[in-house]
């Protein structure tokens, strides 16, 4: 294979390069200082600087639909939007890492380095159109994450979570790779763009290709915690330090869905009724499992973990819509818009969970929120906004996210998925309301960690305001997303 790397390739991947270089700064500084940790705030600023530069480069150079590295990477609207969402989520998660007792302090530079490396993997993942590139992105992102979780100062849960995540993550990767091998076997190629045109035919005629596609899809289902492949999620989300959980629930999920979308966009779903049916059922099961299991949880993080499983189900509805729609941009923009709203509200909710953790071994139960409304009215109000938005109550952004997603589904005739989505939203009301009830309507002393000036608070407030106001401009925003995908 003849490979020419030109300036345009370098420019297109410049966000990754910028991120990678920025990730080196903190650990280099640490080495130069004789292995002494620099002030964490400086480390954080370096990381955020890298993210800002990467977002800027992504906005400037990405999005034109160009491919780089011999069609290995593509830079279109999906790359741009999903990449930006993931990077901003990563940035917010890093701000939380700076302040959470389980992650701050010693080895903070290493942590930031790993988080940034993971973000580089994410950028590869959102732009990959070659299945092997997808695999590289997945692994790069995941390996850094396994380490990050294991590095927590917390003694037991995190190690367990890291191991669980590692084993199941590796299993998912293996499944994915196995599928890729089948696809390579039938098409002689792993590039999505090359078999995109005839994927719908191939899947009907070739059993091997069907196998490959199913395994690839299942690999993704593991990664984005679609039921019944979700079992690792609650344990890992609960055990990992909260900032990492936020990172996984938003940034990791966003980019995994981006890659998922690219595979589905080959229109293989149109070719295979079975795959199409299977995915629809998976979406329905995920919505039900996530929402009903969340009702039973008393641990705040575990509840949010199950809720994020339910949200994966909603997003999968959008992914399926994009896969069968003649106007794929419509379904895909629903997914992107949903991920944007989901990212904001989930990050916000986890950020508040993080603020409530006073020590690294702290477990926050929903009942611990009692009295928060009196002690910290602002935080309670923000959490209320996040939870109402997660429920999908207007006029919050979460409502518009659901509206666009289910609108696309109904437009494609997937009425029953929309109805299931709505029914499970009703189920979700029950557990999303519980923290609000406890905060506002029960007496008690909430255990709030004392911070005088809190960067997490600032992010939380910014996100709450964004959730309230982005809804009003959601129309133009949605159109912008859709136009960028055409």
């Amino acid at each position, binding site marked *: 294979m003849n490979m020419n790397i030109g300036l345009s390739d370098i420019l297109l991947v410049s966000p990754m390069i910028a991120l990678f270089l920025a990730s080196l700064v903190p650990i280099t500084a640490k080495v130069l200082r004789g292995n002494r940790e620099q002030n964490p705030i400086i480390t954080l600023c370096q990381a955020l600087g890298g993210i800002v530069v990467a977002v800027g480069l992504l906005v400037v150079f990405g999005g034109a639909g160009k491919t780089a590295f011999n069609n290995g990477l593509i830079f279109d609207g999906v790359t741009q939007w999903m990449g930006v969402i993931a990077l901003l989520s990563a940035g917010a998660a890093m701000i939380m890492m700076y302040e959470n007792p389980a992650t701050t302090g010693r080895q903070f530079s290493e942590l930031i380095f790993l988080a940034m490396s993971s973000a580089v993997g994410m950028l590869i993942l959102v732009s990959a159109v070659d299945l092997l590139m997808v695999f590289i992105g997945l692994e790069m992102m995941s390996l850094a994450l396994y380490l990050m979780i294991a590095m927590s100062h917390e003694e037991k849960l995190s190690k367990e979570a890291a191991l669980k995540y590692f084993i199941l993550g590796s299993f998912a990767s293996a499944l994915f790779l196995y599928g890729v091998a089948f696809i390579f076997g039938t098409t002689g190629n792993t590039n999505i763009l090359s078999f995109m045109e005839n994927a719908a035919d191939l899947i009907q005629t070739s059993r091997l290709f069907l196998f490959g596609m199913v395994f690839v899809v299942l690999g993704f289902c593991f990664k984005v915690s679609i039921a019944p492949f979700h079992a690792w999620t609650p344990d890992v989300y609960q055990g990992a330090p909260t900032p990492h959980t936020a990172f996984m629930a938003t940034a990791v999920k966003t980019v995994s869905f981006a890659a998922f979308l690219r595979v589905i966009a080959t229109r293989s779903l149109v070719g295979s009724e079975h795959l199409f049916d299977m995915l629809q059922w998976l979406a329905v099961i995920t919505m039900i499992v996530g929402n009903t299991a969340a009702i039973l949880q008393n641990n705040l993080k575990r509840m949010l973990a199950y809720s994020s499983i339910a949200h994966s189900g909603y997003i999968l509805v959008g992914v399926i819509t994009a896969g069968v729609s003649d106007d794929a941009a419509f379904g895909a923009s629903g997914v992107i818009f949903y991920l944007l709203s989901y990212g904001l509200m989930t990050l916000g909710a986890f950020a508040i969970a993080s603020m409530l953790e006073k020590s690294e071994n702290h477990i926050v139960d929903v009942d611990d929120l009692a009295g928060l409304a009196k002690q910290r009215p602002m935080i309670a109000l923000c959490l209320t906004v996040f939870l109402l938005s997660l429920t999908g*109550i*207007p006029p919050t952004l979460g409502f518009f996210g659901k*509206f666009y997603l289910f609108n696309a589904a109904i437009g494609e005739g997937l009425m029953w998925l929309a109805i299931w989505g709505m029914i499970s939203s009703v189920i979700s009301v029950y557990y999303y309301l519980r923290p609000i009830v406890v905060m506002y309507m029960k007496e008690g002393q909430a255990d709030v960690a004392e911070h005088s000036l809190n960067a997490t608070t600032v992010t939380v407030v910014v996100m709450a305001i964004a959730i309230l106001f982005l809804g009003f401009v959601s*129309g133009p925003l949605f159109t912008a997303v859709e136009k960028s995908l055409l």
Partner: protein
Amino acid sequence: MILSTIVFLPLLFALIVAVWPNAKTLRPLAMGFAVIEFIVSLALFQQFDPNTANLQMVERYMWIERFGISYFFGIDGISLWLVLLTTFLTPIIVLASWTSVTERIKGFHVCLFILQTAMLGTFLAMDAIFFYIFWELALIPMYFMIGIWGGSRRIYATVKLFIYTFAGSVMMLVAMIYMMYLTQETTGQMSASLLDFYKLKIPFVGGTFFSLQTLLFFAFALAFAIKVPAFPVHTWLPDAHVEAPTPGSVILAGVMLKMGTYGFMRWVIPLFPEASEYWSWLFMLIGTVGIIYGALVAMVQPDVKKLVAYSSVSHMGYILLGLFAFNSYGMNGGLYQMLNHGISTGALFILIGMIYERTHSREITKYGGLAGVLPLFTIFFFIITLSSIAVPMTNGFVGEFFILMGTFQAQPVFAYFAVTGVVLGAVYMLWMFKRVFFGEQGELVKDEHHPLHDLNAREIAVLVPLVIMVFWMGLFPNNFLNYSKASVDHLVHNKNSYNLTINQPGAPATTAATATTTAPATEQTTAAAQGDK
């Protein structure tokens, strides 16, 4: 701009109240705001033309162009009085909560004003999604109002309220989105405008449940029936009422329940005429059962507030009956009864709140002989009781009379049964009145340690406007009906081809011009073409 001003002014007030630094002046400030809002809403009469059924004072701007969702306010005779009812009750509620809400006063008033915006928006929005946003928004402040300032089982009640109403409305949202796609199929352009929805001809096959119109009909009807609340889905209401603080109960009974009946008038009946007609027996049955069931259950309540709550179920049953009679008497009566119920039941809840503040009990058996101790209170309570049991010359009479007339014309069977509700209503209200106010003095009334004080000036000021309305509406119903008649009759006579036209008095004025530029040209058909037969 007047409709936007009316809807969003309370939201602005809520923001000001939220940042207001001085806790002592908070109540007067809120009171001032509520009065200002009422006065502003009176300005509607200046521009409102009672002789037309058209949509007036329209404000329309494209909001989410991709899906044809617009920022779309308009008013006609059906919404006019509900808007005024909302703005009229709010100052009364603020005044009534003066001493009953003592904790987190700021939060309470913020909730109240947000709620006011949501309710006014619901009555004025003419776009499906825009309407849905206000409809759901109303749930949040109400949820907090009951959950924070309510009674001992408030959490159960508030969660139940939220889940019931939310569960009802999500299917409506799905139906709305589906109808947006229907507009796209027929006109080529997606639209969420109610006016475009009216033009849809949705296929209806009588007798089968799975006809498209029937399914959409039930998706909407369920949402509204829960809000009303109609008979089998009413159980959230007594809980919510009993646990809600006085102002919460007043809003709930006074305005929020009307969102449901208004929904039937504005959405269900004109959008799905054939299905409405076909299933009218079901809703008249539900209404009738509600009337009798509510009255019977009210009769055995030991708690005054719960009694009034069940009487609400009964009264709302009348409204449903009137609406589904599909004739001029029934519909006009239904609309009139919405206002009556807002005034009388609102007043009853306020009165119960006043006595509860004094004795901290609502148990009927602990009272007795109250008339001798609180004469003024007794007089007010008596007047409102009369209005509630629909004695002639009070507002309640006019509404119930019209509804029963309409029902006799349409489905006499239901009327026979509904009439017993009038009797039963008199029984439970008067029996309660007798037990509370006459006879031997109960333990609470003769408690020497806590002598009861009669109404003070503030409390009288709360009640007088309500009593004035009771008689004004009872003696001169035409003063009110004249404003709504054109719209209601238009709905009755053109039910099967209902259409609303945007009013353009004289030459296109500025607001009308906006409407012309953004609205699809087909909407410009004149009302004359429809013709009031």
